[in-house]
């Protein structure tokens, strides 16, 4: 009984940046594909292996930036900081990295020879950047007729916004997501960033690529698939889109409430201690009664105005204050367990420390240790689901720049020792960015 990973024997090559593209590649890497990142010592990829290649110690520290944006190990600068950036390393596990300068003919020749041995190619760059390099579906097909090409532009490969540049956070605004999130009573300029588009587009692309791979097994045909990140996101805003389409209504943020599903109480309540919170979301009269019971049936909970959901929705601000006067006396984790036991949907708001201490994630083996030469050993967030006949675990640590050059050039592409030495001398092959990259 074969229990190998699904994509053993499948090769994925990618030129991906920031998040969405690398995320697709990660899912294939996690489930057995050989994934090769094509990188360059001469060209810095924006916001991929860092906000810059060589941040000085003066620009790294907890007072300067949040950990997710600049949380290098021990907040320390390093000669190869680009191998220690958490928002890269979190998706770089199980992958290989090679370097080549595709703007020079011999670099592009190497890339073409690699494509001849590739099943899926993924990119999420601005379309004009790829045009400039000459990396098109037509070019890839010449090398490998049945190649599957995944293109993830922000907007599209055609249309008025084709060459518009955006981070995920801008996509969030333009697709209509930012409009329906945030504090009810505050200006949108107080919105903190969200990047849901990257996850939505990335997962959609992984789905489409898997369908395409299966299609190729059955028909021998490859294909070009375009997954504009914004078009992957819009259907996830189904309720607000349909309300406009059906009723001409423009929805606004409901903050942490849920009037659409007629649920109250439904909010995030302060608990005992510093910055500790719990979400309580009552979805039925039965759950409301269970909550009242859990609170010790305070007199206010028996008032007529809270007796049914209509009343509770009408008096929701007052209701929230009263519920919070109770939650603020309790530890959020203990309260979560107590309320769940009583049959009330409740969940603490977890920070990263809570996540690592969480008994559920521990029992599920969610975190896995990886040791990487420039970072050391840490617990990484692992796989997103379990497959009963496909045992799986994280295999390789986050790839360092150019770490697998020798393997990819010699074993995969078939370059001779002499050619390898020449390409190395010409600067294509290396593990460091050129000194002029700040």
């Amino acid at each position, binding site marked *: 009984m074969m229990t190998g990973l699904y994509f053993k024997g499948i090769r994925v090559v990618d030129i991906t940046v920031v998040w969405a593209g690398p995320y697709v590649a990660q899912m294939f890497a996690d489930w057995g594909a050989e994934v090769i990142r094509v990188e360059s010592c001469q060209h810095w990829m924006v916001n991929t292996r860092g906000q810059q290649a060589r941040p000085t110690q003066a620009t790294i520290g907890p007072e300067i930036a949040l950990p997710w944006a600049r949380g290098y190990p021990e907040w320390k600068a390093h000669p190869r900081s680009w191998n220690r950036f958490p928002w890269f390393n979190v998706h770089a596990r199980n992958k290989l990295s090679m370097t080549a300068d595709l703007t020079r003919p011999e670099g592009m020749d190497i890339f073409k020879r690699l494509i001849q041995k590739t099943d899926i190619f993924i990119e999420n760059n601005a379309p004009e950047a790829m045009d400039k390099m000459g990396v098109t579906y037509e070019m890839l097909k010449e090398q490998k007729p049945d190649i599957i090409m995944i293109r993830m532009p922000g907007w599209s490969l055609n249309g008025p916004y084709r060459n518009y540049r955006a981070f995920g956070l801008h996509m969030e605004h333009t697709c*209509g997501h930012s409009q329906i999130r945030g504090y009810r009573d505050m200006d949108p300029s107080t919105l903190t960033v969200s990047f849901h588009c990257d996850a939505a587009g990335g997962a959609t692309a992984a789905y489409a690529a898997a369908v395409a791979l299966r299609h190729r097994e059955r028909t021998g045909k490859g294909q070009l698939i375009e997954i504009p990140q914004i078009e992957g996101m819009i259907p996830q805003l189904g309720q607000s889109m349909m309300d406009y389409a059906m009723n001409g209504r423009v929805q606004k943020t409901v903050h942490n409430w849920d009037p659409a599903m007629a649920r109250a109480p439904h909010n995030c309540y*302060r608990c005992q201690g510093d910055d500790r919170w719990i979400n309580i979301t009552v979805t039925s009269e039965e759950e409301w009664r269970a909550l009242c019971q859990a609170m010790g049936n305070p007199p206010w909970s028996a008032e007529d105005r809270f007796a049914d959901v209509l009343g509770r929705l009408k008096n929701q601000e007052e209701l929230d204050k009263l519920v919070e006067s109770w939650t603020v006396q309790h530890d959020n984790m203990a309260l979560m367990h107590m309320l769940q036991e009583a049959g009330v949907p409740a969940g603490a708001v977890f920070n990263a420390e809570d996540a690592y201490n969480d008994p559920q994630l521990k029992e599920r083996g969610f975190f896995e240790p990886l040791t990487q030469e420039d970072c050391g050993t840490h617990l990484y967030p692992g796989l997103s*689901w379990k497959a009963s006949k496909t045992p799986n675990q994280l295999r390789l640590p986050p790839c360092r720049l150019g770490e697998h050059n020798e393997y990819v050039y010699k074993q995969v592409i078939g370059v001779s020792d002499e050619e390898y030495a020449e390409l190395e001398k010409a600067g294509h092959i290396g593990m460091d960015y050129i000194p002029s990259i700040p």
Partner: protein
Amino acid sequence: MTEETTMEKGLEGVKVLDLTWHIAGPYCAKYLADCGADVIKVERPGAGDPARHMGPFYKDDPHPEKSGLFLHLNTNKRSVTLNLKTPTGKQILKDLIKDADILLESFRPHVMPALGLNYEELEKINPRLVMTSISSFGQTGPYREFKATDMIIYGMGGSMFWTGIASREPVRLGGTVVSYQVGVMAAVATTFALYGAEKRGYGEYIDIAAYETTRASIDRNGTDLLAYQYTGDYDKRAASSARSYPTGIYPCKDGYVDVSGGTVVFFPRTAKMLGRPELAKDPRYCTGEAQIDVKRKEEFDAEIYYPWVLQRTRREVWKEAQAAHLLSGPIFNAQDVYEDEHYKERKYWQEIDHPVTGKILYPGSPYRSDEMPWTVRRPAPLLGQHNEEVYGKLGYSPEDLVKLREVGII
């Protein structure tokens, strides 16, 4: 016309039995259905999928065939009603499973085993079956029977803790995007497993938890976790927006717009956009240190940026920012999105006709490919619309179906 037109496109020929309710499971099934799979949605007799009773409703009429949410999530599916708590109901499901490639369910973990419909039993009927169970916390572990809603999953598993401002409570994402995303991840997991099953000749059981997919997702959640491991510090809601500038959302003439114009990399382009090229070399603003100086930011905002941005509309700012190669975007609402020329030119919106609501313009496909066209073969189904068609194939006559309905089996 070549033989290509008779070849399968996408997931044509793949048979899916969908027992899921609400949002995540049905969105997973929608991905499969829209890509060509034959999806049979199995609903409870009488009430059907609870999403039929969730808004927004067509013309605000809370009718079970007029839920905009349901209509959007259930395109291209057929609907049968079936009471899985009855012996006949279970048998009918098992008969349907014999022929199925995929079974999707999203009940709490004890439900399917209690019905005798756990994977170990179903595998005996159809060893090729891929069965995906979508649950809040997974099939195992101390939280497996916890009750959860979209906000609870986000609060426990997402970046809610550090979304919002420091002086107030954390704030959730918009709509129910967390639940939709779980659906997409389930589609990935299921399709990966289908690929594996077809290669090996046997299926398997997929255990996917909303909590874990949210935790592992790339919306900074995974980064937050790893950064904590690397530094010992966790992310919090910021006390102020003391970062490079201009960054973030600013009001303008007719709304709000976000231009990422700060850091040493982008500030020179901001200078260009503002028509003030000399600012690119102005040490008050252009250096790495100046860019994290809060006083300088306030000065820049008040004297230079606000005056410029308040004189321009969202689209004007956006155009000028893009011309200067600045990553940027205005805040648009649903109306802005529906009316935008870009999507119309791309034929993104799909008009779908439905027997009860008539024609509505729906969001279209999240991907484009000639080999995998997103087609609308049918609108969301009426409750039990396909009972005769589906059960007829199992050998039930219309008279049989009347009897089954009378005793509440369908």
